């Protein structure tokens, strides 16, 4: 077992984990933050996307021990003081979710995309969403939500 310390959504945690504990399992099972989902478990679908030290990563493909000392943000940490993050707001305004299963990972990926590229073209949006699968929406409204969030953030 290894002792790790990390900050999740602004709160500090100290936990003992096995080497093989995945970051997504730490987040869901040990910290009770079930907003981050396990979809494919083979690093394709992006449902598990969180931010580690400001970068979007797939938490099913990262060991918890690799996040020792890191700052992690999950979907639960996106709204601040009861106010939705512009990406969250855009998702509901644009009907960019149906079942909602891909949504947390999608929101985290979009937020990261817009941080790197505040005014992405259509092609850049498609490229930026290659790591996130959605089976319900057909992506059309998700792309609209990205554009609205980009507008709002100006």
């Amino acid at each position, binding site marked *: 077992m290894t002792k790790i310390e990390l900050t999740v959504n602004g709160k500090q945690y100290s936990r003992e984990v096995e080497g093989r504990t995945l970051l997504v399992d730490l987040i*869901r099972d040990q910290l009770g*933050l*079930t*907003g*981050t*989902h*396990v979809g*494919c478990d*083979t690093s*394709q*679908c992006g449902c598990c996307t969180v931010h580690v030290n400001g970068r979007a990563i797939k938490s099913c493909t990262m060991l918890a021990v690799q996040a020792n000392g890191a700052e992690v943000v*999950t*979907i*639960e940490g*996106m*709204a601040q003081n009861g106010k*939705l993050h512009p990406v*969250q707001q855009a*998702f*509901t*305004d*644009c*009907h960019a*979710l149906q079942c*909602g*299963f891909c*949504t*947390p990972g999608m*929101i985290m990926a979009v937020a990261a995309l817009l941080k790197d590229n505040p005014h992405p073209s*259509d*092609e850049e*949006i*498609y*490229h930026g*969403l*290659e790591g*996130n*699968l*959605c089976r319900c929406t*057909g*992506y*059309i*409204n*998700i*792309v*609209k939500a990205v554009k*609205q969030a980009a507008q709002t953030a100006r």
Partner: protein
Amino acid sequence: MSDAHAANRREDLRLITGRGRYTADWSLPGQLHASFLRSDRAHALYDPGSGQLLTGSFSDYFMPRAGLIPDIRLNDHPVPSKTNVLGAKGVGESGCTASLPTLANATLDALWPLGIQHLDMPFTPSKLWHAMQAAKTG
């Protein structure tokens, strides 16, 4: 259908803040006795010798991502059903069934000038290329 500012659904708030409750998110005693999974993907390929599933993950089974279909234009072409007085038809996912023959017809239409008059899905690049080569020589 609606434009960008549809009425926001009541369930959206909990789904976009990570407070959805999916079956994977809780664990109750006796919750799982047995689970049955039919093949969750069409054209699942099995090795006939060993029975091993060859398309076992999305690394091998193609899943559409954003940008595959850049935009959807809606056209209205009402054809009432003849099987009931209202002329009503099913909605929801029954509409998907039309997409497959549409794609197949479009593909065959493109290949028709080469003399190809029959081709089954999946229309992979390799399969299309071989059909076109065979048509050139055959």
